[in-house]
């Protein structure tokens, strides 16, 4: 078990190197010169060649790309992701300042997704073929197909303009997270609901369920105490990965709702060609995502004793 965990952790390092290469190369290949953008932001007068050259020198943008990459990677290995071109603040501080807002959004979105997905998935499974099952499937299809910006505006129209219950945008007030989280969470809920349904249907067909029924247990007990426990194992694993998606996928939702998270930070950084910020974001999110996947894998081992036993048998 320990060896397995160690191997999984060690396997993350080459992955992180790969992510860092991609982050660096892609952000540097995008058209647009950060020095020109910086110069333009300081004034509405177009800058001269000399002024742009001076900014390029200051930010070492004239150095060859491999040199800049090595310098950045060396810093990242020491926990220093460089300084933002836009604010001159350390990238790590910027990410740390914006991450709590995104984390809050992702957590609320996940809660919403689970609250919708689990009962819906269970009901669809136990009432297979009923109007509820068909309705859930249509709903899931709709939820998966709706673009988040469209859904976001629709929710604003209903809950902010229509009823006045929730604010349109921003992070002020207790209810501010509801609409962006709902926009974000609805898409995830459809995936989880479908998974819950199929997983539960599979478990309900197994022998131990038949035994439970033969013992005279109520259907409620069969489903909620016995079947659901086993059915939730793949759902939990996917939930871990979905949480990573929610953290990294909030870019559009944060833009629509003016939510001050790292998604918004990324959008502004891309506009400004703020290379250190973009690279820092990708590396940071890549790390978070891979760690969440690792936790999901390990939780799988922990939750399902059959996997541990099978592994032990193989090792023995």
């Amino acid at each position, binding site marked *: 078990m320990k060896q397995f965990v160690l191997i999984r952790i060690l396997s993350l390092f080459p992955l992180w190197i790969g992510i860092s290469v991609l982050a660096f190369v892609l952000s540097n290949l995008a058209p647009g010169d950060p020095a020109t953008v910086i110069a333009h932001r300081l004034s509405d007068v177009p800058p001269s060649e000399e002024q742009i050259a001076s900014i390029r020198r200051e930010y070492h943008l004239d150095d060859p790309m491999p040199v800049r990459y090595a310098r950045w990677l060396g810093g990242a290995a020491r926990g220093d992701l460089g300084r933002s071109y836009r604010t001159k603040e350390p990238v790590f501080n910027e990410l740390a300042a914006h991450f709590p807002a995104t984390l809050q959004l992702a957590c609320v979105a996940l809660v919403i997704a689970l609250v919708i997905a689990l009962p819906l998935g269970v009901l669809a499974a136990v009432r297979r073929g009923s109007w509820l099952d068909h309705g859930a499937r249509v709903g899931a299809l709709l939820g998966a197909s709706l673009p988040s910006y469209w859904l976001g505006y629709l929710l604003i129209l209903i809950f*902010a303009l229509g009823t006045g219950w929730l604010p349109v945008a921003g992070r002020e007030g*207790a209810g501010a997270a509801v609409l962006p989280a709902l926009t974000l969470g609805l898409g995830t809920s459809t995936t989880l609901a479908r998974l819950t349904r199929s997983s539960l249907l599979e478990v309900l067909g197994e022998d131990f369920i038949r035994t439970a029924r033969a013992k005279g247990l109520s259907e409620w007990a069969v489903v909620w105490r016995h079947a659901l426990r086993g059915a939730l194992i793949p759902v939990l694993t996917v939930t871990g990965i979905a949480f990573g998606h929610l953290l990294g996928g909030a870019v559009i939702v944060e833009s629509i709702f003016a939510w001050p998270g790292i998604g918004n930070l990324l959008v502004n950084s891309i506009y400004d060609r703020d290379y250190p910020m973009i690279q820092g974001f990708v590396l940071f999110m890549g790390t978070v995502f891979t760690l969440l996947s690792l936790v999901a894998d390990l939780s799988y081992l922990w939750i399902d004793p059959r996997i541990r036993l099978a592994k032990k048998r193989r090792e023995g």
Partner: protein
Amino acid sequence: MSDLRIRNPNSAIRHVLELALCFILLACGASRRVGGEQELIVGARADDYVVEPLKSKLGMYPLNVQICEPLVRISADYRIEPLLATRWERHGDTWRFFLRPGVVFSTGQPLTGEAVRYTFSRLVKGDRAGIFQHVYLGENSIRVMDDLTVDITPERPNQHLLEQIGHANYGIIAPGTEPATEPVGTGPFRLVEYRRGEWLKLERNERYWGQHPNLRRLTFRFLPDDTTRVLALQAGEVGMILDAPREQAATLRAQSGLRVVEAPVGRVASIFLNIHGQPPYDLLASKDLRRAVGLAIDRRVLIESVWEGNGEMISTIGPRAMLGEHAQLVQGFSHDPQQAAQLLGQEGWTPSADGGRVRDGRRLTLTVIAWPEFDTATLEFVQAQLASVGIELQIVKSPDTASYQARIESGEFDLDLEAPNQNDANPIFLPALRFYSKSTGKTVRFFAPGSRFDEIIEAGIEADERDEVTRRSAEAQRLLIDEEAIIIPLAGLRRIYAMQDDVRDFSPHPSLLNQRWDIISVGQ
């Protein structure tokens, strides 16, 4: 399997509904309604303030919220009015400013000549983008003569200093303060809280020297998404929005409780023509071809149909007020597709079977780039208009400013659609900045007409009288538009504001940077 039933499925549904209701109830009361007297929340675009020490102009540029005031103010007709300086004199190359007595900063510190010296020295130290390349100020340009008298001597003679320092960049800050952390000025408002990317909260400056603003609190919320900004206004979450999307203006006008106010023209959408391009972007070296492009576009249809009336026919490259009566020197382009076709024929461009034109085996194809703010409909309209005379137009839409800048600086374009702002009161500023061969801007090399134009600009730069300067600017524009067809003014653009009905006394300035917020009041 199909006979499976949960014992009490209705209770599960009820639990879900209860949870959802909890969420909604939690949110009740979070929606902030504006309308409380003397408080206004303004929905602004993205937060573009620079927050780097020495370079920061927080509260001043690119959104001026009147925390700091410059020495002079630029009126809606681009005239200079006294502000922190009550009067000024010019002695040779030196400008002498007499400061308004009794003015204090929001901290209580008095305004003295030292504050002017501190402000300008800081700007010079932090200058990298070259805002001083046209102002010619250096570290030793400011001399404090006494508490209320300051001499400014630019490093080279500058007749336009007065018109330039009315720009918000030159807002006077209290000595020893740094706007990156807290801008302290003499303006009608003082900063209460700035949260980057979220809001800028202001309160009335009770120590203000002039008439106190009616608003006790003024907040600018940054809502970069156009639709969200409109929805926030419709929901009553903000009392006013800046830069209401043109395509939603009619809807907002029709909605009860809301008002749409358009500012006078402060910028002109124009097509800049690359006359010094390298192949394949070399076709517009021909003046007749350039004229044909100008004549082919029906600007009235563009304004009425594509922009839904949100524009104004204009012949000059800046607001008409900048040129006064001399504006009539510039004729501009009429819509005459027949003449355009004739010019193309004279140039040897013969019609081909597919509606295009060819000459010596080369197809008449031009490439247009544009500021990202211009929508595809505008570019497609220009494309269709040029196609009607046989000019094929390829559209290169830039997703953001950085990629647009990269494209224009590479010279890979024939036409360039822009809408530059007129933010200061210098009539010669725009033609000099974009077309004068000695201007330091990186794109001048594509548009500079040459020595005759340069002579006009130099005469304008050196002229003492404003009337002479405006005449020179008009002459320069006549050369650019009527004689050489290097720029095609399409339409004057009016900035659109939308607000709740109870927002009163809002008087829009052609330039957002010079917009006054202190005169607004809220209430029936």
